[in-house]
């Protein structure tokens, strides 16, 4: 009888341990991002966050989903506020009310992850590839800017797969905000558009 009990508990323990090694993860990225320190340019900007973007769930592998929608919308809302003095957020381009604005529609092109089992490194990594469609007030496309973002956990020790991917995704989102603030006005087509606008304003 005691032997049967021990066998049962040993089997149960083994089952619990094996289930802990499950490689599937459903990650909901929940984070508050700090306010950006930036001096916005006196330019009007309209950001189109489509329903699809706001509710975006990435599936980087068949066993992993990352719900990025809310977090990425909050982050980009915050980051774009540091770029434009006058800003409007809409969910479709027909709702635009600001005049002479740059109209920017962000979308996610791809999300990739790598785990210690893929790379034999002691880190989890997340890549998010954004595309920003930039158009003028008349709907003429100015550029389509590819914006990659990257995040990794310092190490994977004592982290569950879900927590590690969430941490790496938050770092990747923060990186996206940094890249946007640093490089947006360096995009040659945007730079030229801004110069042109400033010339037009000066002539008025």
């Amino acid at each position, binding site marked *: 009888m005691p032997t049967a009990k021990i066998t049962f508990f040993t089997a149960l323990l083994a089952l619990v341990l094996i289930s802990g090694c499950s490689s599937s993860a459903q990650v909901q990225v929940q984070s508050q991002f700090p306010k*950006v*320190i930036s001096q916005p340019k006196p330019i009007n900007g309209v950001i189109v966050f489509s329903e699809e973007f706001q509710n975006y769930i990435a599936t980087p592998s068949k066993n992993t989903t990352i719900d990025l929608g809310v977090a990425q919308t909050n982050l980009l809302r915050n980051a774009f506020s540091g770029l434009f003095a006058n800003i409007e957020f809409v969910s479709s381009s027909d709702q635009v009310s600001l005049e002479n604005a740059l109209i920017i529609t962000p979308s996610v092109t791809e999300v990739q992850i790598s785990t210690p089992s893929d790379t034999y490194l002691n880190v989890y990594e997340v890549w998010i590839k954004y595309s920003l469609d930039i158009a003028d007030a008349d709907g003429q496309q100015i550029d389509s800017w590819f914006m990659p973002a990257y995040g990794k956990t310092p190490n994977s020790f004592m982290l569950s797969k879900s927590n590690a991917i969430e941490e790496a995704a938050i770092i990747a989102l923060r990186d996206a905000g940094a890249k946007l603030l640093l490089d947006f006005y360096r995009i040659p087509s945007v730079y030229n558009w801004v110069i042109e606008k400033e010339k037009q304003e000066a002539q008025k």
Partner: protein
Amino acid sequence: MNYSAILSGTLFIALMLSGCGATTTIDEYRPTTKAMQINSEESVVILGRRDAGHYDTDREFIDCVAKKMEGADIQVLPERQFIDSIYPWFEPRTAPKGLKRLTRLMKNPAIKKQVRNQKLRYLVWIDGSTNTHDRGGSISCAIGPGGGGCFGFAQWEKSSIYEAIVWDLSDLTEKGRLRVDSTGTSYLLGVVAPIPLLTPVKNDACTSLGKQLKQFFSVATNSAQNNSDSSD
């Protein structure tokens, strides 16, 4: 007979434990031997470098050094709080790697205001990592209905190498550098139960670096500072 067995067992454990000490070396460079003055209202922030591809300076180590510094009446601003307050200028992608870039950043009035609001005087960058190498031996454990146990012996070496650079935000200069190099071997004995004999290499590196950094600074009270200002 029984007595000699206990004695030799104790001796063996003592011998093993004595082997669990880390060897730590600190190199220091300072342009002057004078301690860096810091007002009791001013603060220091300790930041980890995270822009390398293959490693990150881990937050645990940064927090550990910050705790060691706090003991000397030096106000240490939490790393996360500072990075968030100045977002996105100290993210891995954007953090200044040299004084030239820092000088450019500090020309931004919004960033300067944030630094001033937090009464931040010194910035300490820490770059490095702890690695495990030279693993040897083997240990195996088994469990069955009749019981379980481990048998064998394993050992591994750890090394912690960290460099700290101190920047003064009042005149945007480098005030000194410290390098800590700590190594030690850990053992795992499998004698029915696994007996770990771990060498706290990282902790040793943190304690040594924290202690040495503390000696860099000299905390001046406000009244003393005011007196010296007026005598100038």
